[in-house]
């Protein structure tokens, strides 16, 4: 089905995604490298690698949440087209969702690799060590899973609002993944969140998995404090996978009952 290539192209040419998902994240990376840490504060390669992996995990998550916002907007602007296509073209809800899944996973990997390359180059230069990621293939796999999760979350939220609550709430919910990313991202970076919350939150799971596969170290309850309790990345992976599957199944169900909303209503709500 060609939807995946058109949708991927549509996302890749989305200026908002490039602006917020790439350029703005570059700005955060510069802040992380030059503002949030003083010269000489990080003396060892091990500490530099952990610090770099912290930022990679968080920035990749922020970038993916920008992807999520773009996906949410594209779904709700397409509600009349989807309602028509499911009736009068060969497109089925499950096919559409799988195409979006492929597209989002590709974009997840794409954005994550940009962040990976940017983080590696910038932080290696800043700290004077070769801060090479420890497991790039695994980082790529979990970036794809993170992209899939962002699709599942954003499509679930926007479909619930579109089908049952009215478009007045769409602008807000399309930014929910972004808000959650910031809350959980900075939350785990600097504070001690409850362990059960860290395992059950897909946002922290994404940060911790990306941190783990960049640094090779076990993620900790407070990411900037290596002496805090270690977390099991396998449980994080299981949590993220379960969230993704549950939200995808629910989204598939909601997509089959999509309520067509006029584009004008979407613009003016």
């Amino acid at each position: 089905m060609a939807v995946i290539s058109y949708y991927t192209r549509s996302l890749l040419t989305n200026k908002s995604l490039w602006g917020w998902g790439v350029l703005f994240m570059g700005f955060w990376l510069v802040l992380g490298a030059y503002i949030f840490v003083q010269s000489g504060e990080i003396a060892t390669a091990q500490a530099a690698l952990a610090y770099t992996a912290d930022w990679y995990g968080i920035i990749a998550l922020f970038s993916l949440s920008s992807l999520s916002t773009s996906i949410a907007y594209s779904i709700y602007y397409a509600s009349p087209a989807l309602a028509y296509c499911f009736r009068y073209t060969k497109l089925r809800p499950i096919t559409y969702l799988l195409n979006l899944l492929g597209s989002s996973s590709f974009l997840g990997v794409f954005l994550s690799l940009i962040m990976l390359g940017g983080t590696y180059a910038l932080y290696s230069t800043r700290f004077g060590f070769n801060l090479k990621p420890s497991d790039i293939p695994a980082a790529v796999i979990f970036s794809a899973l993170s992209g899939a999760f962002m699709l599942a979350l954003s499509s679930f939220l926007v479909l619930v609002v579109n089908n049952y609550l009215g478009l007045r709430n769409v602008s807000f919910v399309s930014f929910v993944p972004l808000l959650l990313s910031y809350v959980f991202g900075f939350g785990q970076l600097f504070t001690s969140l409850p362990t059960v919350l860290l395992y059950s939150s897909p946002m922290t799971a994404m940060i911790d998995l990306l941190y783990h596969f960049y640094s090779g170290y076990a993620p900790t309850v407070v990411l900037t404090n290596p002496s805090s309790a270690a977390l099991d990345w396998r449980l994080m992976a299981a949590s993220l996978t379960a969230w993704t599957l549950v939200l995808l199944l629910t989204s598939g169900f909601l997509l089959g009952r999509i309520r067509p909303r006029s584009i004008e209503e979407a613009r003016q709500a």
Partner: protein
Amino acid sequence: MLEIDDLSVTYRKGSDALKGVNLKLHKGKAVVVGPNGSGKTTLLRATLGLAPISRGRVRVFGLDVQSIRTDTRLSTNVLEVYRLARLRVKDIISLYAELKGADPAQSLKMIDDFELGGILSKWIYELSSGQQKLLGNILALSFEPRLCLLDEPFDQVDQSRRLRLAQLLRDFPGEVLLNTHEFGLLDRLGDSALYFMIEGRLFGSFELSQLTRLYISRGEVAGALVTLDTSYGKFSVTLDRGEAAITTSTSLERLLEAVA
């Protein structure tokens, strides 16, 4: 092919956009003429599955519109349904050709025939209103549909292209449900059923070939083909006699104003 029974559509509580509409289209074309805001587009949107049906039923190819799935035999010129993703015109054509299981070459040929080659690399929002309307018409007609729903297909289109489009519609082998607020060009569509839509109610059918013989008069007239019961009075449609010939006005709205 298309059966609409007692259809009501309600966007807002207490205000029906369509009120108990009945229409059957098994062969040929049906033309719905009515003033702006009379419910013509809502009728099409309900058939497309885009309007909230509060009462009645729409059946397309024997299936209820609420439950119909993956039936590629219906097409429309309502451009809203072609915004599946943010795409340029050429990609919209390719994508929908694939989704319809059709060859995009037919659309591209029609684009060429209408001298619209320049729009292929553009986004929809970069097109003029007339170009958007023509693109919708082309997408509706070119994927070999059996049933084509056309919302104001001549609107904003220049005269030479209107004539070309009218010819295309006349030669179109499938069924067409077309709505318009103008009487111009209707005589070029060939044999069709004619309906009037006023304030969400559908009146008819008449034969389009009789258009020049239809008259309208204020009030109830004995032997009238139909009486139009509207909020601004009753009007009778008669054959060969009456206060004003329907074709003396460019639209039903103006005609009712003139007679009232």
